């Protein structure tokens, strides 16, 4: 639309002059910059930082939010020492760590493998890629809910298919109800949902490798195996790290999918830290104690987020 406008003679003005002219005619750039940024910052301060400070204050008290009339007593760092010496919390941490390790590991294996295959650009690959991407856009809560249906013993599709291929009677095992199986169930559903995420990022990494590097390797008669280890993997690694970090953070705070799939059970073998936190805060109403746990999670996620942003910037420079 601007291209049609004739340029006035002062079209060769320097940037500084333009800016000076603009300043005379309207708001200064600096004013506009702050006017544009401040609403966002104020909103984030009000909805994120203010509550965070509130939680920090509560974490040093024994406040219970179902009894707001009982005055909160200052208990110092008791909540923190309680949490760090509580076996249940450490068990939840272990459940979470195992979940993060196996789910992200499986997603990386499947996602990277699929990306390598899709990168061979067979006919119709973009259609099938879109199909593979669908699960990751769904609501984790709805996913957790409908997988409980698929995983019903007897009537569920999953048990029936497993039974069909292995001969194990479909009603002889419960993916959600059996203690040894439940932790693998949440890993499996998470991998179903998030493998596409890792795949998509790996695909971008693979496509960022210029062809001439492979051509040079071909000239040097490097074997495909050697090409993979010396070119493909190292050059995709920054992208892979990005995917691993983000999935790691997301699964560390996993709540919705697991809450609806197993709600932490049977017993507490799938109780991730977020579910423990929800129970302490909204079922036992130990607000002070759970605020302390929330602060601990904040610190962990904040540290991880810092590393993630560094990884993001590294990929951006490519």
């Amino acid at each position, binding site marked *: 639309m601007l291209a049609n406008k004739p340029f006035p003679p002062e079209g060769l003005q320097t940037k500084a002059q*333009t800016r000076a002219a603009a300043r005379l005619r309207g708001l200064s750039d600096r004013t506009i910059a702050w006017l544009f*940024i401040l609403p966002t910052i104020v909103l984030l301060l009000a909805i994120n930082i203010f509550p*965070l400070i509130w939680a920090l204050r509560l974490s040093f008290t024994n406040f219970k939010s179902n009894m707001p009339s009982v005055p909160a007593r200052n208990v110092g760092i008791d909540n923190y020492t309680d949490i760090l010496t509580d076996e249940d919390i450490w068990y939840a941490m272990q459940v979470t760590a195992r979940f993060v390790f196996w789910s992200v590991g499986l997603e990386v294996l499947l996602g990277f493998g699929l990306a390598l295959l899709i990168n061979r650009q067979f006919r119709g690959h973009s259609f099938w890629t879109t199909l593979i991407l669908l699960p990751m856009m769904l609501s984790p809560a709805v996913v957790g809910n*409908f997988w409980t249906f698929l995983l019903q013993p007897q009537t569920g599709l999953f048990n029936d298919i497993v039974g069909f291929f292995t001969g194990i009677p479909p009603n002889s095992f419960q993916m959600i109800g059996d203690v040894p199986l439940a932790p693998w169930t949440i890993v499996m559903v998470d991998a179903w949902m998030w493998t596409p995420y890792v795949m998509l990022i790996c695909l971008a990494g693979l496509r960022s490798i210029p062809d001439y590097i492979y051509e040079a390797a071909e000239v040097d008669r490097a074997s495909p195996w050697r090409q993979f280890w010396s070119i493909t993997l190292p050059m995709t690694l920054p992208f892979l790290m990005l995917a691993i970090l*983000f999935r790691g953070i997301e699964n560390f705070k996993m709540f919705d999918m697991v809450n609806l799939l197993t709600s932490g059970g049977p017993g507490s073998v799938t109780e991730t830290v977020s579910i423990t936190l929800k129970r302490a805060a909204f079922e036992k109403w130990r607000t002070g104690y*759970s605020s302390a746990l929330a602060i601990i999670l904040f610190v962990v996620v904040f540290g*991880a987020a810092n590393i993630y942003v560094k990884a993001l910037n590294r990929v951006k420079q490519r």
Partner: protein
Amino acid sequence: MTDLALQQSVVAASPRSKTFAAVVVIAYALIATLPIVWIIMTSFKTQEDAIAYPPVVVFHPSMEGYVNLFTIRSRQTPEFIASLPPAETWYDRDVRKRNMVIAGPSKVLPRFVNSLVIGFGSTFLAVFLGTLAAYAFSRFKVPLADDLLFFILSTRMMPPIAVAIPIYLMYRTLGLADSYLGMIVLYTAVNVSLAVWLLKGFIDEIPREYEEAALVDGYTRLQAFVKVVLPQAITGIAATAIFCLIFAWNEYAFALLLTSGDAQTMPPFIPFIIGEGGQDWPAVAAATTLFVLPILIFTVVLRKHLLRGITFGAVRK
């Protein structure tokens, strides 16, 4: 890409390896979509077919799930039903066949409306604020810009349950619990970080020369922003809006803890759709299908921008 394949360059995959890749990827795609297809199929089954053992693949399609989803029914004696005037609508007839009469609409429609109002409201605000901030970060030298951008992104990374404890207390004090305003403000705060990062990426790609030319033409900064940059950024704004909408639409943790009735959205509602004796799976599947269908369509529409969306604009292709 096609040129490359035609030339049979050394880097292009051989036909055999392509076939192998195609077989594995297609097999994975079919297995991965099976659960979604199964849920959509279940929404057209009767209660008996839905929980049949072994699971049935071929069945007579029925609207029972959808009828159950949208209505509350009461069981009546056949004599009572025979004494009623003839049923006027197809869903009345469907319900009476099962010895029931419709007692009224269910809560699902208000929940759907809540999801729409909160989703669109928060998306509009997040994109509005995000566009302004992204433009400022993209075009002006903002002091501490990197730190501010990190701060903005880090708020999105926070565990929702941890944030929910003080928000719950805050909203209870302010009277915002279980209200549209409270949920819209909350989702806006979560989405604005994504909006700023994504839109900054899109605006960075618009050449500065356009605006500079406009400034020279006598436009003020604001005019140049509105008349030059915004039209150029419209695709990016639309893609960002869809990402924000999908987040708000899918969000569960905050909705579960902060809403219970008036402002409850679909995700915490769907698992509690129950019929006589346990979960009414066809109705749950019907709700899931209606809830998920827009997302599936948006995913296909967004395909090109998906990568940007999930990496906060850092990876573009």
